[in-house]
């Protein structure tokens, strides 16, 4: 039963490790280098065009949301002030 407890603990550890940081990637073998980006062992790695396009759109929309705010006044002032008194 002690063994069983250990097994459970291992399982939990594994889950936590995966959640925090990916396991270090295995060195690329010659075989995988010559293949396209899709991984034959993971069918979910092959993304539909539609899904990829949607991810790209959402990503840019979110990013542009901030970009469109332009340069906040205090930052513009800071750059001008520093530029005027540049020591170089």
């Amino acid at each position, binding site marked *: 039963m002690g063994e069983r407890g250990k097994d459970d603990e291992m399982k939990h550890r594994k*889950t*936590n490790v*995966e*959640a*925090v*940081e*990916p396991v270090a*990637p295995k060195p*690329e073998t010659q075989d995988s280098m010559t293949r396209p*980006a899709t991984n034959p062992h*993971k069918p*979910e*790695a092959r*993304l*539909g065009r539609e*899904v*990829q396009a*949607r*991810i*790209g759109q*959402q*990503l*840019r*929309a*979110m*990013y*542009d*949301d*901030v*970009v*469109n*705010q*332009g*340069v*906040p006044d205090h*930052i*513009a002032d*800071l*750059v*001008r002030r*520093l*530029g*005027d008194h*540049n*020591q*170089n």
Partner: protein
Amino acid sequence: MKLDPAIRDQVLGTVPSLRAFAISLCGNIDRADDLVQETLLRALAHIDSFEPGTNMPAWLFTILRNLFRSEYRKRRREVEDADGRYAETLKSHPEQTGRVEFEEFRVALAKLPADQREALILVGASGFSYDDAAAICGCAVGTIKSRVNRARTRLADLLAIEGADDFGPDRATRAVLAGGGRN
């Protein structure tokens, strides 16, 4: 001596994108603006080391990322934003259409490991080439490509599963974070 106005304009022109990147790293708009300010102070103090004609955005992004990383090492537990604080920061923009879908996306993005999210944003949103992104992150081009691929795959998985939040590992992770996330 005054800063060359052309250089100054290049710096100012990079600020909006620099902020967007900073927010994606920090998950907090106030800290992101502090980080941007600190980056600009550092950059302008060392403007001589910028070679005119080279890539100003890549130069500033590199400085910002390095500053963030050195701070991150000191404050790791605060910065870990797997609890979706990144999603929280950008929550209320009523002009956005498709709010629900957008929210799902932000929550999913916040669940990615920091390295993958960073790579995906540099390439997919900031518009850097793989080469530039690799230079900014101080790693090999192949590493950036693999991070971007993994990020896309993971996002697709997270977004494809309806109610992904209700599945085991995420719920367990969230419970842990909710219990001990803030000190």
